[in-house]
Each structure stands twice: as C-alpha cells, then as structure tokens.
C-alpha cells in the first residue's frame, strides 16, 4: 500500500479480483420501515402513507429500470448517457432480472428468504401468507400468528411485514423487551442484510469456481449486529456464509461506513498476497434503513419512490489466475488521521498520490469508480449529482498537475468517468457498484486500469469529525508497465 510518505509494500503472490455479484431485493412494502419514512409517516399521518403507497413501483418496473440493468451488468454505465432522464420513464425492453452482475429478487422471494434466515425464530407470518410463501421457497415449518394477534404484537413493539397493499402479513418480534440492540426494527434490518449478503454470496459461488472452497469471508456492510453488551459486535459475514451453505470459511468484519468494502478488499488482497488464505470473499448485506431516504423529494417530483431496493454484494479475491485484474496493493491508499477532509484533499490523498507513487498519471487510469449514486435519486432531494462532483475534482487535480488544460476538464470527466447508476445503498454505491463492469472491461474489454475511490462519513457516529476514505487500483492482467514500476 502506498500513501504519500509511507513505505510501499510488495509481496510475492499477486491478488486478483476475479468476480463480483449483487443480489438486489426489490422491497417496496418495506420502504415504510426505512428510517426516514418511518419518522415522516409517524408525524404526517395517513395521507402521507397513502401518497407513498401510490408511488411504489412494481417488480417489473424495477427490473426494467435502466440503472438496475447497469447493476445487473446487461447495460454499460455509459449507455445511460444516451437515455434521457428521468430514467424510470425509459424502461428497458425485454429486461431480465439477472445478468453477469447478479440478480434481482421480488418481495415474495425476499420474504421467503427472511423466513429461511430466521435462525432465532423471531419471525411470524399469517397462516395464509405462510402457505403462499412456500411456493417462493419458504420453509415448510414457519411460525404463524393470526392477523389480530399480529396487530397486538405490533402494538407491543413487533415490526410488521406488509405487502404493497398495506396488508400486514407478518411481523418480527423483539428478542428482548429492554434491549434496544435487539428491538424488532433493528433485527429486521440485520436479517435483511443477512439475506441480501447471503444471496449475493450464493450467486457468486453458483457462477464462479464452485469447487474451490472459500477460506475466509470479510463482511463490510453497514449493519450493527449485537446485543446490549456488544452493540455492533458484528460478524454477520459468518451468518451469511451459513445461509449460503459455505461451510469451509472463517469470517470477520471490516467496518468503515461506506468505505468499508474497499478496506475489506485491501485486507482480502493482503490475506491472499501473504499466503494466509487462497480464496477470500468480501460480502456485504444491504441497508434497509436507507429505503425511501429521499422519498419526499421523489413524491414532490412526481417520481416513483426510487429507493426501493436492498442490495447485497459478494466479491471474489484469489491469487493471480493469469486472467483476472490485478489488485495492486502497491497503488492503494487509505485516508489517514492527519490527512485533510476537504474534497480536494481527499482526492489528492486517494487518487493522485497513490498513482504518482506507482509512476502513473491521473490520465493513465481509464475509469474512475467513485461515489456512483444514481443522480435521478439524489437530485430531486437536493443532493445534486454526486459522482459528477467527484469527477470534477479528479479532473481539477489533473489540470493542476499539468496533465490536461483546464478547458479540457469536461472531456476528462466524460472520458474517465461515468454516470451514476447505483441505488443509494451507501457502501454499495461507493465505487464497488462498478466492479462487474470493471472486471469485464479489464479482461474482455479495452480497459487497462480502473481506480476505485470510496469515502466514509465517520462523523455521523459523533465520535470524530473526520471522514474516511480508501482507494485501490485494478489493472489488466499482463498489462505492460506504465510509469516507473511493473505491475
């Protein structure tokens, strides 16, 4: 790893990032359990709930949504430039719910997996819904509760499971009456993360080298699993491994808000480079809490509520296979305690410095995967085009370094950037959303280098005013060296 002033690290075994898969659960009825809608609906009453329900998307619409097809790997991100916005008005014809980047599942299948993943027996379904759900993969034996009893349980703190009709079909009950860490909404969030991460892991292993055992799982999602004595104790990765039937792996978590996945990839690369493990999979569940975070902006714009998916990810890191892109540990960077947090300082530390240390210029990188939040989601809520702002900063550094004319910044952004396409699922949108495309482009396509840059909002936890960040460089296997050092 290289940061300015730090000593480069080299190793014998070169790690590669072989594959990445997403599991995208379309869960419109759970939007009301997202943090923002939960609070707004409680204060604004029935009319607000009805307005929200009127703006939910069908699974078919979610599958045909162009940015979701980019996540699934069937459309390149650049294709979005040719599709007029808002993109939900331009559904993709003959779209499928799976592709080389992963798969989408509808709410019924998601609920079935919640039932299968409920190791602590806290989930109850109405008898009718339990029967219906069996055809979607739910276990034969599911705890049931009649609708009137469910309603009473919800009054006592259970978290309801609803359908988009607003009908309550089940609930998850608290695991302890006095433990906020085991409150029903927290448990549902964690179970949703377990399911989406576990399904992404299963999708990865079904598609890639099923015969080679996974030695280690590194979790990097944004959930906090634990009880009152170890809030956020973690290791949901191991639970995901259990759900996915991965019996060979040990596991632990790496946490850093949205930057977690890149830190986890660096740890995975180091494990492989050091010979500690031969196959490491980085896993992350999705964030139920972020469902509908900007729904009020979407309602005001007349959009459907676009934050209606929970996304899990699984990323395969193995020793050099002669084909997959090299994870260059000597060209990675982390944001250090003493580094500044202004956007230009972050870009300098995470993008320019590690490239310069590796003998590369900013323009030697074909694509930058930055914060790839879908602007159709963020702009109606006033958050602007986040990836574009990140690209402008990298282009400004290229101009400052004399690599390009200032007048060429827009061309640099177009050539080295891409439109945002990721659901606003925090750690998923932070660079790794591009991984399936990067791996394809660096093996079968024309790309030579892709830099991944992620930032984490540590200050949200109120323990520091710092932000965090990490970056890594993926390079085409066998690419001739550019700059000072061979790959």
């Amino acid at each position: 790893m290289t940061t300015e002033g730090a000593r480069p690290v080299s190793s014998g075994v070169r790690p590669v990032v072989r594959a990445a898969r997403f599991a995208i659960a379309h869960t419109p009825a759970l939007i009301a359990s997202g943090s923002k809608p939960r609070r707004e609906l409680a204060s604004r009453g029935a009319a607000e709930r009805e307005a929200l329900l009127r703006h939910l998307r069908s699974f078919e619409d979610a599958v045909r949504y162009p940015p979701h097809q980019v996540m699934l790997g069937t459309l390149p991100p650049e294709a979005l430039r040719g599709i007029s916005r808002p993109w939900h008005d331009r559904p993709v014809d003959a779209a499928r719910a799976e592709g080389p980047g992963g798969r989408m599942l509808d709410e019924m299948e998601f609920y079935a997996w919640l039932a299968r993943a409920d190791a602590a027996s806290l989930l109850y379904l109405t008898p009718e819904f339990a029967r219906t759900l069996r055809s979607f993969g739910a276990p034969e034996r599911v705890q049931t509760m009649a609708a009137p009893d469910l309603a009473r349980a919800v009054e006592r703190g259970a978290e309801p499971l609803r359908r988009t009709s607003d009908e309550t079909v089940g609930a998850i009950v608290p695991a302890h009456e006095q433990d906020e860490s085991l409150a029903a909404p927290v448990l549902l969030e964690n179970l949703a993360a377990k399911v989406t991460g576990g399904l992404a892991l299963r999708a990865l292993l079904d598609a890639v080298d099923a015969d080679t055992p996974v030695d280690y799982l590194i979790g990097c999602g944004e959930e906090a699993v634990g009880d009152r004595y170890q809030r956020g104790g973690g290791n949901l990765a191991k639970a995901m491994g259990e759900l996915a039937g991965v019996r060979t792996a040990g596991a632990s978590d790496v946490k850093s808000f949205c930057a977690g996945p890149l830190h986890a990839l660096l740890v995975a690369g180091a494990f492989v480079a050091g010979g500690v493990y031969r196959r490491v999979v980085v896993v992350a569940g999705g964030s139920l809490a972020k469902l509908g975070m900007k729904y009020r902006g979407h309602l005001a714009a007349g959009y459907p509520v676009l934050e209606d998916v929970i996304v899990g990810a699984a990323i395969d890191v193995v020793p050099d296979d002669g084909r997959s892109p090299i994870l260059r540990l000597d060209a990675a960077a982390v944001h250090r305690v003493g580094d500044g947090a202004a956007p230009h300082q972050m870009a300098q530390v995470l993008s320019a410095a590690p490239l310069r240390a590796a003998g590369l210029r900013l323009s030697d990188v074909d694509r930058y995967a930055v914060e790839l939040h879908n602007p159709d989601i963020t702009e109606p809520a006033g958050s602007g085009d986040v990836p574009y702002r990140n690209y402008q900063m990298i282009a400004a550094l290229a101009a400052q370094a004399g690599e390009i004319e200032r007048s060429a910044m827009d061309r640099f952004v177009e050539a080295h950037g891409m439109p945002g396409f990721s659901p606003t699922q925090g750690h998923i949108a932070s660079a790794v959303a591009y991984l399936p495309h990067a791996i394809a482009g660096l093996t079968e396509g024309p790309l030579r280098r892709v830099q991944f840059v992620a930032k984490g909002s540590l200050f949200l936890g109120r323990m520091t005013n710092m932000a965090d960040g990490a970056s890594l460089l993926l390079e085409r296997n066998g690419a001739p060296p550019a700059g000072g050092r061979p790959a």
Partner: protein
Amino acid sequence: MIDLHDKLVLALGERDGIPAQAIAACAESAGGRVVYAATQCFV
C-alpha cells in the same frame, strides 16, 4: 469579505462538499460565533 461580527452561525457541512469544520473556521475568521457545526451525508 463578509463581516460576521455579532452574528451567530450554524455551520452545516456536506460530505462531498465543504466540511462543517471548514465552514466554521471561515465564519470565525470573519468574526462570527459558531453555535452549531455538523457535517451531514445526504446519500
């Protein structure tokens, strides 16, 4: 140069924009009294 003497300042930063601490430092240098500073992440 804006003069913030006798002004109370709420410094609201944004993760991909200007951090609250930077806003607060600027406001204080202009004579303002920062009574609240927080950086938010809107994604």
